[in-house]
């Protein structure tokens, strides 16, 4: 690894802690970010010569803080101070240890606060995500714009707006109590899941561009889990992200078309990620404190554990979706459950289950896709064709539409040769 690559990785990994601590000192996001940027610039100058510090985050906090304070002083005196690179190289072990002591105790809440301010309830989801990727992950505006498929200027504006809102809002700087801490934790978990889904819901032609969003979400979830190692829901979140992302390489074919779970080449699944996800689910289950992330992860785990599609334990998946329905009632959860039901009890029962959802899902692509598939299984081809047509009209991406067209083609093929009465 080259020197600069090593330094880049070190700066990235130290960033949440360093910016979090600087935010606590200065209570202002822009000042904290600027201080961190200054510290990074000095690191790039000093580390290749003097070698990396033992504790990169502590070094960056100390240097960033000093630089920002100097800046304030400089402004006050209206005259430049002598170059202060000397002061930096003087940063000896004793100071480093002091910095670490200062920050070690706050470390957890600093990072949580930094993540939490990105989840401000007044910020729309897209702004929350953009802000977190910019502030916590340190992606450049250009990188974020690319992942969101918008122009750099538009993204710049989105982030500036989000920052202004956060600056106006009351950011809580005092150490949170237990209840508040757990509320923050859940808000942050939801935001991380949003980042992941932003990448995961990409279509075939953009999946490579958007994949970094999934990877970044996994990194943030790992960070959160290291801060709160005994929270089963955070283990569940981490497991869910890993188990879903493990299938990334198999989810699209060479033409960029979506490949359904049953048709995926399971040899392409990432076994290391699956192993880690399964380990986390095992750990979480021992706490006997179930939650939506754990259940969704458990469902993903059952898919990953099946070596062949027909080995999938659909009965268990049906039960898990049942539990999720009670915890988080939503027509989409019921729709997912119906797929499991169709495997266990047949398409008739599944169709019956989703009929009541129609009014609430009348504009939902997947509803018509799933409905069409059930109807097709029952040989009600004309109705299936109507459902598929509706699905294509509602498709969000070309990959989704192409996938349904595949069903339609199969329908045509099946109904033509033997001329069943269901065909026209």
């Amino acid at each position, binding site marked *: *690894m080259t020197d600069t*690559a*090593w330094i880049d*990785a*070190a700066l*990235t*990994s*130290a960033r949440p802690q360093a910016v979090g601590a600087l935010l606590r000192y200065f209570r202002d996001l822009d000042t904290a970010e600027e201080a961190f940027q200054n510290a990074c610039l000095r690191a790039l100058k000093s580390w290749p010569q003097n070698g*990396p510090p*033992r*504790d*990169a985050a502590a070094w960056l906090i100390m240097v960033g803080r000093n630089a920002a304070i100097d800046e304030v002083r400089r402004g006050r005196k209206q005259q430049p101070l002598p170059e202060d690179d000397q002061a930096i190289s003087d940063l000896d072990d004793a100071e480093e240890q002091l910095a670490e002591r200062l920050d070690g105790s706050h470390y957890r809440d600093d990072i949580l606060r930094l993540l939490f301010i990105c989840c401000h309830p007044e910020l729309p989801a897209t702004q929350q995500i953009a802000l977190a990727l910019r502030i916590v992950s340190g992606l450049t505006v250009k990188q974020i714009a690319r992942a969101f498929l918008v122009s750099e200027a538009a993204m710049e504006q989105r982030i500036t707006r989000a920052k202004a809102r956060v600056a106006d809002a009351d950011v809580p700087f005092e150490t949170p109590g237990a209840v508040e801490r757990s509320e923050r934790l859940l808000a942050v978990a939801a935001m991380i899941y949003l980042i992941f889904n932003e990448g995961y819901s990409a279509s075939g032609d953009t999946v490579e561009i958007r994949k970094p969003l999934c990877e970044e979400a996994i*990194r943030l979830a*790992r*960070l959160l*889990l*290291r801060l709160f*190692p*005994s929270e089963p829901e955070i*283990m569940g979140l*981490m497991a869910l992200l890993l188990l879903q992302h493990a299938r990334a390489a198999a989810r699209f074919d060479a033409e960029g078309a979506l490949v359904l779970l049953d048709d995926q080449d399971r040899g392409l699944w990432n076994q*290391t990620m699956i*192993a*880690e996800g399964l*380990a*986390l689910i095992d*750990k979480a289950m*021992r706490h006997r404190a179930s939650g939506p992330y754990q259940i969704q992860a458990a469902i993903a785990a059952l898919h990953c554990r099946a070596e062949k599609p027909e080995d999938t334990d659909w009965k268990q998946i049906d039960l898990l979706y049942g539990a999720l329905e009670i915890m988080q009632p939503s027509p989409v959860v019921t729709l997912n459950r119906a797929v499991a039901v169709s495997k266990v009890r047949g398409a008739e029962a599944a169709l019956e289950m989703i009929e009541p959802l129609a009014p609430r899902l009348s504009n939902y692509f997947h509803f018509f896709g799933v409905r069409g598939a059930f109807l097709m299984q029952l040989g009600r081809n004309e109705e299936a064709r109507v459902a598929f047509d509706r699905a294509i009209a509602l498709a969000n991406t070309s990959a989704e539409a192409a996938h349904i067209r595949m069903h339609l083609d199969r329908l045509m093929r099946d109904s033509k040769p033997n001329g069943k009465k269901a065909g026209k």
Partner: protein
Amino acid sequence: MLYAILCYHDEDLVGSWSKEQDAAVMKKLAVVQEKLAKEGRLGPVARLLPTTAATTLRKDDPPLVLDGPYAETKEQLLGFYLVDCKNLDEAVDVARDLGAANPGGAYEIRPVGLFVPGSART
């Protein structure tokens, strides 16, 4: 004599490596391992999953199961090698070679007292 070479590194940092960086390090390490394997000196090698996947059993009475690694340290145990070496000097040389391929962090070199090859299928 068998030596264990225990690999410690900041896992946040290792986790921040890009896929390409990670692959490059693993490739360099493979060269060192291959050399040892050819000489018949390489024992089991393991790269451990992140400490977030770790569970600790405190052997109290009754035993206590805790989430996370045994020790909260700045650098974490991320993997290990077992290598057959004539003496400590040789073991340090192996660690140096591995370290050149994968800088940063530390290796703890520990002579092995009892080694059971085991029968786990891998």
